[in-house]
């Protein structure tokens, strides 16, 4: 199937700074695609290039197979949910949602009513933006963007402005909304747990480059670069091999099966409730962490142990 959105060798250079470097990616129709990376990695710039607020220095952007490089933001059938929501403070909730609907037809009226219901904003239609909560503002921003029926909805750190307690709940709601509507989402985030939990595909960015694109399990379990491995979760570096803490086991006797293993000395055992972190020091002084269940947490400071792991859990890099 043809991707709804495609970037080919897109670069964005500013004087003295290259924000995006030769980035190519394809977003399948109906997918939730996350651009994940640390701040300053170029993910927001990429989103702005797709929205049309910035022009690529080189490269091409295609929407439904049509090159849209030269189209203005108001000519592109994509819509953005801004990080700060950018709701119009002089308009009501309804005024914001119907902003993009040029004609006040019965069809448009019906659409606005549906979105108000979908976003649970009934009874708030005539409020000003200053009179509603942060969570409601986010839902207004979503409704306003969805009202124009975009081919792709672009979301810039959609959860970052929310109370941390709300985030997990809204995350799940966002995912189910996307599934229900079938609209393609391209979401920018620096939170790997957020990306892993809601995405169909994750593109991991670093210093303007797209380092890897894949399904959440794939980028977590089979990272292509050291950066991807360590950005998506903790990694123990043992003899040049990466092993995630939760794949690292611990035993007092040397393992007999064909597994990777290394001797170590326990430094600290930290009880975290749902699991235990055993910190152990290798002979070369490197400290690694094994995340184990409470049964394996009986080791004490100074114990001589063997750390071992399944060969299949080793992280190998092509770079």
């Amino acid at each position: 199937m043809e991707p709804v959105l495609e970037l080919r060798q897109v670069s964005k250079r500013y004087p003295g700074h290259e924000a995006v470097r030769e980035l190519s990616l394809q977003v399948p129709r109906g997918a939730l695609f996350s651009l994940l990376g640390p701040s300053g990695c170029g993910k927001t710039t990429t989103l702005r290039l797709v929205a049309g607020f910035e022009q690529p220095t080189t490269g091409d952007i295609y929407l439904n197979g049509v090159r849209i490089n030269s189209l203005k933001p108001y000519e592109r059938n994509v819509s953005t949910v801004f990080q700060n929501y950018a709701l119009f403070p002089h308009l009501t909730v309804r005024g914001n949602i119907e902003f993009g609907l040029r004609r006040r037809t019965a069809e448009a009226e019906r659409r606005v009513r549906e979105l108000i219901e979908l976003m649970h904003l009934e009874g708030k239609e005539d409020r000003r933006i200053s009179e509603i909560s942060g969570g409601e503002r986010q839902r207004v921003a979503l409704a306003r963007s969805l009202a124009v029926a975009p081919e792709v909805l672009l979301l810039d750190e959609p959860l970052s402005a929310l109370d941390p307690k709300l985030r997990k709940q809204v995350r799940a709601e966002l995912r189910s909304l996307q599934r229900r509507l079938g609209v393609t989402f391209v979401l920018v985030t620096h939170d790997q747990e957020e990306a892993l939990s809601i995405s169909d595909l994750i593109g991991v960015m670093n210093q303007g480059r797209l380092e890897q694109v894949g399904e959440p399990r794939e980028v977590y379990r089979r990272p292509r670069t050291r950066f991807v491995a360590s950005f998506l979760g903790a990694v123990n570096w043992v003899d040049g091999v990466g092993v995630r803490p939760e794949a690292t086991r611990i035993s007092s006797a040397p393992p007999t099966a064909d597994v990777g293993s290394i001797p170590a000395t326990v430094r600290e055992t930290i009880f975290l409730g749902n699991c235990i972190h055993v910190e152990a020091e290798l002979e070369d002084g490197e400290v690694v962490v094994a995340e184990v269940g409470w049964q394996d947490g009986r080791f004490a400071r100074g114990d001589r142990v063997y750390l071992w792991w399944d060969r299949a859990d080793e992280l190998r890099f092509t770079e």
Partner: protein
Amino acid sequence: MLAPAAVWMAVFVAAPLGVVAAYSFLTRGPYGGLSEPWTLENYVRLADPLYLRIVARSFRIAAVTTALCLLLGFPLALFLARSGGRKHLLLALVILPFWTSYLVRTYAWMFLLRDTGLVNTLLVEAGLLERPLPLLYNEGAVILGLVYGHLPFMVLPIFAVLERLDRSLVEAAADLGARPLETLVRVVLPLARPGIVAGALLVFIPCLGAYLTPDLLGGGKTVMVGNLIQSQFTAARDWPFGAAVSLALMALVMLGLTVFLRRGGERFL
């Protein structure tokens, strides 16, 4: 905390106003100055069509000036707000004329506009005109002078609002399909309204009481309320009537402002 402010207000606002108010109820002395009896005569005289015409003309000129300042000032403020790193330099240029006396600048306009002035000389020399255009000593010249002198008062408050305008709101409008003109009308103008209202008041009120500009550029033919007041205190030596006109003008402005604020205007300020 409030005591110094109260003293300040009493000395610099209430006392002079009280003096003017007292004058307005007295009678002109035989050789100018003030004398008894106390009377309402000065206010009754205001109803004379001669004076009403002057008041009406003042309001018309102030309104036209405000409208022209807005028409010129809004695009200028928008341009300044979007000028990036140069905007404070450009803003300084807008304020630069204030470094010279308003009187001197008004004279400069006279040199430009009179029959033997720069504009007419150039046009006649170039063969575009046979006779000089009557550019000076009419209502148009007064309005030109007032617009020139008060434009910064319109630009500054609008600039202040536009500079703080969240850029992402303009992007959001474009993102939702609004072309630049539509974004201007539906997003930028409504959000700039507090600045527009402040600028309009800062231009309208001083223009209403202007006397220097109509005196010099109007050549005494375009008399505004300010000139009427001035002439009562000087040539006519009728201080009581001058005081009455001053107070009446002030009352009219305050009444207008009150009505504006009552009708919900305060949310723009």
